[in-house]
């Protein structure tokens, strides 16, 4: 097993990986930019190395600096998390040259899957169903126009190096194609340093259903069932759940077997995710394979009981999988809500600022993977994901209610989040009935009215009490001296009297 692991990432996923290192008894090393001098991932690690200024290209994306940090601290392995260098084959290549283990797939498998065009060809050969579209990329808008006409509008432009909705555009009409192509290329260049995009038919109202897979270097490959990630805005997942209400046991077995086939076709060794589009008629199409640990991996951990990051590290160290396909089963239901620093009431506009108050929910079946702390700054430098709330319950209905309760108990002030938006999604009759398609938000949330005014009078009462209460009882931006607290509301609940003398009255 590895002696020391460098985590080449930041925020919640860096903390999550370091937690797996702790479980395995392996010291971890953080890297951090100037913007993350006080970030949680830096302080959570056993050691930390400064790697440059805030722009990712000069720090988290700089392979030379990552390798230097690993060598300086004596690390024999690097975990890339997700995003940043996680799907850049240059990192595993460089690791191999430096004699450092890379906790991820081979550069060849990464190359194949990272390029959506090449992977489509390979998967067609392997007999996996695919969405019709371009067989190869092009710089020529005319090629895109032709491919779009052939597949039929609507079509979708996607970054070859893509993920997370970046460099992605739906085009409904031919005269929108050129502008969308240009925007997608620009975004792709910024996000991935590669403006290669391609085009495929856009399936209206599908579900996004993906399968978690993991394969070791001894020829074992298994799937850990599905995650449904249909609740997306701007092609970015915000609520994920497992199991999917849409799958029968037969369909689950068939898609799972296809997911394993995808991994095997790529000679894949690592945890990975095979994404499918699932159309309303029950057909499914291979979309892409993500060759990294996924943002939404915790819901799979909740229902399978497997620690995916621990297993990923074990597999990278050459150990065989510690379970077989037959030993895996799904238990209960799990939902993940992504807490982005964004305004759920205003078109998900990113929000920056200082976290004035932060407290997490807790209790049986509630897990929070977070990368932020009270007093921390949310800056414009990085992806706005702050934390993930993961809730596990015996059944879907209980899980939905428990998730809403947990969102209510999750207090974040100073930076906007889409907590209220997510509660409205979770309460929507179509969500409750499992009518979850990728156009859910567009279709059902467009005319949403957040109306916080219903709390107007109570909020004024709370503000009054806050103003009157003893100094120190209210956290204040000006008191932020780096001493923080992140107590969970119900863990810390203090003196409270009720009864005849004092209670709520309307």
């Amino acid at each position, binding site marked *: 097993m590895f002696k020391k692991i460098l985590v080449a990432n930041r925020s919640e996923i860096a903390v999550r990986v370091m937690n797996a290192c702790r479980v395995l008894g392996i010291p971890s090393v953080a890297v951090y930019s100037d913007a993350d001098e006080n970030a949680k991932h830096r302080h959570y690690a056993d050691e930390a190395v400064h790697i440059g200024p805030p722009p990712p290209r000069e720090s988290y994306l700089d392979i030379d600096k990552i390798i230097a940090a690993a060598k300086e601290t004596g690390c024999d392995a690097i975990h890339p998390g997700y995003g940043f260098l996680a799907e850049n084959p240059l990192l595993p290549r460089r690791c191999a040259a430096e004699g450092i283990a890379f906790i991820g797939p081979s550069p060849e498998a990464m190359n194949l899957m990272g390029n959506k065009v090449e992977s489509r060809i390979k998967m067609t050969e392997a007999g996996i169903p695919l969405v019709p579209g371009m067989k190869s990329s092009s710089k020529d808008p005319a090629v895109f126009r032709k491919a779009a006409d052939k597949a039929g509008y609507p079509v979708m432009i996607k970054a070859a190096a893509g993920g997370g909705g*970046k460099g992605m555009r739906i085009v409904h009409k031919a005269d929108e194609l050129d502008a969308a192509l240009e925007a997608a290329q*620009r975004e792709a260049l*910024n*996000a991935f340093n590669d403006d290669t995009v391609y085009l495929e038919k856009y399936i209206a109202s599908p579900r996004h259903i993906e399968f978690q897979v993991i394969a070791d270097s001894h020829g074992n490959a298994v799937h850990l069932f599905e995650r449904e990630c249909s609740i997306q805005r*701007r092609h970015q997942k915000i609520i994920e759940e497992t199991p999917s209400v849409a799958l029968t046991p037969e369909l689950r077995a068939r898609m799972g077997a296809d997911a394993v086939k995808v991994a095997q076709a790529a000679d894949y060794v690592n945890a990975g995710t095979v994404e499918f589009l699932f159309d309303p008629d029950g057909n499914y199409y291979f979309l892409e394979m993500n060759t990294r640990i996924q943002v939404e991996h915790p819901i799979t951990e909740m229902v399978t009981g497997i620690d995916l990051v621990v297993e990923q590290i074990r597999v990278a160290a050459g150990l065989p999988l510690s379970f077989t396909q037959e030993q895996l089963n799904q238990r209960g239901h799990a939902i993940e809500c992504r807490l982005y620093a964004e305004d759920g009431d*205003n*078109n998900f*506009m*990113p*929000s*920056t600022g200082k976290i004035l*108050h932060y*407290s997490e929910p807790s209790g049986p079946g509630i897990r929070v993977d977070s990368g932020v702390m009270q007093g921390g700054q949310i800056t*414009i*430098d*990085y*992806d706005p994901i702050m934390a993930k709330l993961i809730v596990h319950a015996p059944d879907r209905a209980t899980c939905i209610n428990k998730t*809403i309760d947990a969102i*209510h108990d999750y*207090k974040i*002030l100073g930076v906007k*989040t889409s907590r*209220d938006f997510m*509660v409205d999604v979770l309460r929507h009759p179509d969500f409750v009935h499992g009518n979850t398609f990728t156009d859910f938000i567009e279709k059902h949330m467009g005319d949403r009215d957040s109306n916080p005014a219903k*709390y*107007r*009078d*109570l*909020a*004024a*009462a*709370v*503000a*009054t*009490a*806050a*103003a*009157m209460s003893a100094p*120190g*009882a*209210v*956290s*204040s*931006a000006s008191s932020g001296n780096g001493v923080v*607290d992140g*107590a969970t*509301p*119900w863990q*810390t*609940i*203090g*003196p*409270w*009297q009720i009864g005849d*003398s*004092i*209670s*709520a*009255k*309307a």
Partner: protein
Amino acid sequence: MQKHEFVFDGEIIDTSAEKVGEAYRVQVGDKSFDIRPVAPGLFATFVDGRKVIVASARDHDTTYVGIEAAVLELSDPSSDGFGGGAGDQAGEKDKIYAPMPGKIVKLMVAVGDTVAEKQHVVIVEAMKMENPVLAKANGTVKAINFAEGDQVDTDHPIVELELDE
């Protein structure tokens, strides 16, 4: 009995409060609320008969209050007319600000153009995302203060409108 005044959504709210034991009994209009501090920044009270924990924090002239999944921003009336925050908070619908610091990647209107409420007028790139900025009312573009490629903050309007009546 203490009196307090807050501004929410352009309206003044008057409160009066007294301490009862460890809690505060606050009168807002004809409603009475009991609010009890339970931890730094956290208070217990009731919503629809169930006990809930609410959060409160202050920054400059603004008190943030988190109730269930909502966060309300209340301003001190003394600060700056009513609104007390950046332009966007003040309800100035004729000025269009960036919601956060970033780079203007696209200006989608020119001086003299008429725009409709919710029309996208500018795209600002921040946090690796392209964020459309919308007009808040119908009007005509009076001034554009930045060019594509410029860095903008949240205090200076990018576009100014002559609002329709």
